[in-house]
C-alpha cells in the first residue's frame, strides 16, 4: 500500500496548494497549509512501514510545529482583524508599494 499512500499524499498536497492559491480568506489559507502538513505526515507514516519507526517520530514533531504555527498565526490574524476589520488578503496590502 506504499504506492497508494504516496499518491494519496501527493494528491492531498496538491489540493492544499490549489487552495492556498485560489482563496483570499487568511484563515482558510491557514487551513490549507494544515492540509499540506497532513499530506506530508501521511507519506512519513507510509514510509515508516518500510524504514522503521523514525518516520512516526517525525510526524509527532510536525504536529508540534503545526500546533505552534496555528497558535501564532491565528494570533497574528486576530491582530490584523483588529486593525483592518477584515481577514481578506486583498485588503492587507501594506507592503505592496
Amino acid at each position, binding site marked *: 500500500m506504499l504506492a497508494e499512500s504516496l499518491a494519496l499524499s501527493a494528491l492531498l498536497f496538491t489540493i492544499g496548494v490549489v487552495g492556498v492559491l485560489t482563496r483570499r480568506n487568511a484563515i482558510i489559507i491557514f487551513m490549507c497549509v494544515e492540509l499540506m502538513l497532513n499530506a506530508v505526515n501521511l507519506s512519513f507514516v507510509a514510509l515508516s512501514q518500510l524504514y522503521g519507526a523514525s518516520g512516526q*517520530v517525525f510526524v509527532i514533531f510536525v504536529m508540534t510545529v503545526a500546533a505552534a504555527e496555528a497558535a501564532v498565526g491565528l494570533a497574528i490574524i486576530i491582530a490584523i482583524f483588529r486593525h483592518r476589520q477584515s481577514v481578506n488578503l486583498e485588503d492587507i496590502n501594506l507592503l505592496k508599494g
Partner: protein
Amino acid sequence: MGNEFYPLFYSFHFYLFGLIAVASALLFVTRKSPVAAAMWLVNVMFCLAALYVLLDAQFIGAIQVLVYAGAIMVVFLFVVMLLNLGHPSEMSDIRGNAGRLTAGLVGLALLAEVMVLGRAEFPAQLTLAAAQASQRIDGPGGVIGPIAAPLFKQHLLAFELTSMLLLTAIVGAVVIGKKRTPDAR
C-alpha cells in the same frame, strides 16, 4: 494493488478512506463558508487517522484525532467564530479567473511531477536501508514502544527543543493577540 499480501478487507477500507479523504479535501477548498470548510477539513483528518491505523501507526492515528481534529481545528473554529466571519459579505473569497487559472496550472504541474516521480526508481542507498531496516512496529513495548525509544534516545535534543518552541509560541501568541491600551506601556 490487489496482491496476496493485503486481504480484500484491508484494501477495501484503504481505498474507501482514501476516497473520502480526497472528496472531503476537494469540498474543503471549494466551500465558501469558513465554518463548513473547517468541518470538511476535520473530516479529512479523521480519514487520515483511519489510514494511519491501517498503516500500522495506531498511536499516530490516536494523536491525529486528539491533536489535529481535537485541538488545532477547534482553535481554528474558535477564531472563525470569534471574528464572526460567517456573514455573507465575507463569503466570496475565491479569486478571479486569473487566480484560478494559475492555481490550476500549478496543480497540474505538481501532479505531472508526481506522476514522473512515481515512475522513477528509488536510489540504491534508500533501497539498501530498506532491506536492512529491522525495526518492525510490532516489537516489544506494544504500539508505543517503537516510537518512544527513538523519540527519547536519538531525538532527545529535538524533543526538548520542541518544548522550547511551544513555550515561545504560546508567549508570542499572547503578546501578539493582546489588546493594546494606550496607557499600557
